[in-house]
Structures are given as C-alpha cells and as structure tokens.
C-alpha cells in the first residue's frame, strides 16, 4: 500500500452494517402472505417508533408517501433519523415537525429548481442535528449493499473530497487491482415508507416510471409501510410477474391512499402542485406565519383527505391529472 494513504470519514455511522444481525432479523419476520390492510394512523402508531431511522421512497417531490409523513408529524414522533437522498418536500415536512435529530445527508433543505426551505435550513444550521455527508449514489449503493446482504459496496465516488471527510465511508484497496476505492457501509433503516401505484393487500407492489431507490430500500429496511394509489387483486399481480418491484414478504402495512403523493408528482397519474409548494416556501419566510400554516395544513387536519380538501379537493386533483396528461 506504500504511498497510498487510506482515509476514513469522520462522520457518524448511525447504524452498524451488521449483516448477521440483520439476517437474524429477517429470519424472524413472518413471511406468510396475509392481508396487511390498515389505516395511516394505525400504521404510524404501530410501526414508527421515536428514535427510528426512516427511509422515504420516491424523489423528494415525486411519488412521496405524504400521508404517512403528515401522520408522523401529527403523532409527534421525535428523534428520528433519516436518509436524505434527494429529500426535498419530505425533508421540509420532517423539519416542520421537528421530528429528527440525525441525518445521512446527500441532498437536504432544497426543493431542486424551486428554491431552498428556510425552515429546514434553520434546523440544519442550528447545530442540534447530527449530520453525516454522503452523495446520492453513495446512499443508493448503501441501500443496495443492505438489499444484497453484504456489509459494504465498493465505489469510485467521494474520493478526495470533503464529502468523504465528513462521511462515514472508509477508503480501501481493491484486492485485485490495488486501486483506491470507497467502501460504503450497508444502510439498514428501521422503517421504509413508500408510495406506489398499485399494490395487493399482501404488499406485492407495482411502480410506474422511475424506481429511484425503492426496490433496494424495501429490501434494506426492517419494517416497510406502503401507501398505494390503488389496491389491485393478487391475480392482477400474478398476471405480470415482471412488474412486481416489491414482493409481499418485506411489507408490514398496506394503505390505499389515492392522490397519496400530493403535493408531489405521481408519474402517469397527476403532476405536482407547484402553487402549493410555493406557498410552503413563502410561509417559511416568517416563523409565525409558518406555524399557523402547518397548524392549518397538517396538525388540524384529521387525516390526509381533510388536507386534500383544504387544498382544492377534487377540483384541484382533476387539474393536476390534466397537467400530468398534457403531453
């Protein structure tokens, strides 16, 4: 190894990549194909515990499990950790609820082209949150390592940068080529929350459009909560086995939530509500205004449907469906 100094990131590893422990966990999981239909509030109260580490499906403002995140806020879950791989509106929501104390950060506090969340930034600048830096691919591959049942995956990213320095990655040498590589530790979340297009009552899921990392997230996580636009029959799942992205045995809860990605985009179904997302960014500019805003939007809503009603109800949903199908 001579001249090759091998570095180690200074960041905290929020969970050990202990494959044998996770094997035992998965062994103990009940794998009978049973009906897992439940409600949003029941799923959150029984499966999301204070302190849990979350993985959120979709891509920040695309195919996100909004109903579950709102309920996490309403149930005042605290001290959560989460994987911030393109965490945009989801990061904004969890920040609004002050729900977390640690984060694996690849993309946080922003809403892509829409701008930055003032409230999320305030929280991440406060010094109260433990942050470990990663890149998007690094987090995607950390989920993949866990999904594959291996303690790490080698990769060629983050090398030489401060992103590496404040990560929890370890530099390693390839046993064959002796080249430097980044070893990315497997990431096993406590709970995955994922919104899909179609699922049966057992949790077999179909997704249209991009997967982002949801195939791997569902395999990596101890518990998986699925919200779905539509419940379909098991027969329909069996008609096109190539389309099943998430098989039932990973899934602990299934809830039918039409328009469940709102205000995010649901590929092929409805577009994102850009007006509503702008309202969020605007409300965040003043702390008092923002508190009233989230009280009105989330805390005082009995459930996701009341939230939808407050934001234009079916008329607005129909408009978003129209926008999605413009092209």
């Amino acid at each position, binding site marked *: 190894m001579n001249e090759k100094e091998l570095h180690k990131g200074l960041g905290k590893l929020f969970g050990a990549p202990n494959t044998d422990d996770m094997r035992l966990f998965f062994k103990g999981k009940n794998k009978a194909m049973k009906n897992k239909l439940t409600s949003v509030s029941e799923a959150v109260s029984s499966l999301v515990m204070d302190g849990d580490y979350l993985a959120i499906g*979709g*891509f*920040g*403002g*695309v195919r996100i499990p909004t109903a579950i995140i709102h309920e996490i806020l309403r149930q005042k879950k605290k001290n959560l950790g989460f994987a*911030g*791989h*393109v965490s*945009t509106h989801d990061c904004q929501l969890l920040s609004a609820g002050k729900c977390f104390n640690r984060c694996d*950060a*690849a*993309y*946080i*506090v*922003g809403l*892509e*082209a*829409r701008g*930055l969340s003032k409230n999320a*930034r305030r929280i*991440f*600048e406060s*010094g109260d949150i433990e942050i470990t*830096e990663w*890149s*998007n*691919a*690094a987090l*995607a*591959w950390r989920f*993949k390592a866990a999904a594959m049942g291996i303690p790490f995956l080698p*990769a*060629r*990213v*983050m*090398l*030489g*940068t*401060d*992103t590496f320095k*404040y990560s929890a990655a370890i*530099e390693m040498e390839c046993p064959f080529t002796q*080249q*430097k*590589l*980044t070893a990315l530790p497997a990431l096993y979340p406590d709970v995955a929350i994922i919104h899909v297009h179609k699922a049966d009552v057992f949790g077999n899921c179909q997704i*249209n*459009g*991009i*997967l*982002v*990392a949801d*195939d*791997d997230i569902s395999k990596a996580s101890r518990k998986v909560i699925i919200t779905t636009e539509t419940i379909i029959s098991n027969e329909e799942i069996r008609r096109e086995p190539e389309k099943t992205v998430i098989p039932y045995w990973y899934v602990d809860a299934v809830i039918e939530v039409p328009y469940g990605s709102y205000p995010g*985009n649901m*590929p092929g179904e409805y*577009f*994102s509500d850009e007006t509503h997302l702008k309202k969020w960014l605007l409300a965040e500019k003043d702390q008092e205004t923002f508190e009233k805003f989230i009280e009105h939007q989330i805390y005082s809503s009995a459930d996701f449907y009341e939230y939808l009603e407050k934001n234009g109800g079916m008329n607005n949903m129909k408009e978003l469906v129209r926008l999605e199908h*413009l*092209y």
Partner: protein
Amino acid sequence: MKARYNPMELMITIAARNLEDGAMVVVGTGVPCAAAMLAQMTHAPNLTILFEAGGVAPILPTMPISVGDSRTTHKALKATSMAEIMELCQAGIVDYCFLGGAQIDKYGNLNSTIIGNDYYKPITRFPGSGGANDLASLCWKTLVVTPQNQKRFANKVDFITTPGYLQGGNSRYDAGLPANTGPFKVITDIGVYGYHTETKEMMLLSLHPGKTMTDVQENTEFEILIPDQFETTLEPTEEELKTLREKVDPTQVIIGRS
C-alpha cells in the same frame, strides 16, 4: 440598442455546442436541460439525455421541474433507478455531466454544502452533494455553467463537495478517481474557461463579445491563467436563438432569468 441575445441565452448556446452528436449526458433541471435540448434540436439529434433519478432518453415535451418528475420519462427509452444511472456513469458510458455550486476554485472543485469555516457550525447550509459528487467523479467531462463573480470564483472553497482536479496536477487520479476524467469547461456570463493540461488550473479559452480581461479578473478571487492566444466566443446564430426561444423554452422559464 437592444442586444440580440441575453447572457443566459449565450451560456445555454455555448453549453449546447459542447455536446457532440452521439454523446451521452446527465443533466439537471434548468440550464443544463435547456442546453441538451438545444443541442438535440440543432447539431446533435443523437445526443442521449439521462436524468440521475432514473429517466433515460425521454422525448422531452417541456422542461422538467424535478430531475425525477414524469417529464423525465416521457416517451423515454427506459425508466430505472438512481443506482442504475450512477452505475452507467461508473462504468464509463456517460460523456458529460453539468454541475453548478455556490463556489468553484481554480481546480474546478465545487462547493454546494456549507458556507463557513466550521463544518459543524456553518453560516449557511446548502443541499450538499446530491448527485454532483458522483457525476463529477464518474462521467468523463464535467461542464459547469454559472454566473461569474468574486464570491463564487473563490480562492478556496469552504468545502469540497464535488471533485474538480482537487489540488491540481495528478492529485485527482492519485485520490482514486477514474483516469482521464475531470472538469472540462466552465461557461460563465464573461467567458469560457478550460484547464491547463499539467497544472490543471483554470484557464481562459474565450471571452464573450464585449467582455474584457478586467471583467475576468475583477470577478475572480484566484488568478485565472491567460494564454497568449484566446478566442472571442462565437455568438449564437439566428437559428440557435430561434430554436432556443421557440422550441426549447417558449415560456422563458430559463432564458427569462437573465
């Protein structure tokens, strides 16, 4: 006299010209996407556009608002995962990526994580790497399109989020990053810059019409290499402007920002 084009239109046009036919490029929303669409509609019909969230070679009906929204898979050739897109890049398939950042230094290192001297108590927190570190590590050539000013073109970036040539020379390769990759060009509202073959320092390639060496120097904290000879940037043609305004960005979402 009204200028024939605005700085944004110029930057998009230059960026587009850098994407040759038959190449593959990972783009984000905004300028990069506009540049790739313009290239496709002019000299590079066979340019393959990828989005890091999983969209492969869509027929873009309009500018996406997220690199994962449904426009990025409109009539696409493939809809896949972020891991698969990044693996394509890691395997050496992808020619170009487009990046930006709050700061860039003379070696093309980019900061999009924090402003401040203490990582644990930042003055300002930005989103972080996103896919930037990955794309700049793995794609063959990194293009940066950015407005130029002293704050942004910094002597030292507060945090190397995304690798340029790191500390210059061979340091990028020595760090383990793939051979022959790295920053390619920086396109600003003042000029176009490349990098010195050996030292890897940023170097002027062409000045935009009407811009001066003083503009370059006053808007850069570090010293930009000035070769004996450099070009004047070729202005956008009428065809380029017409395509950009009428087909790529008819609602002026991007080109209206200038």
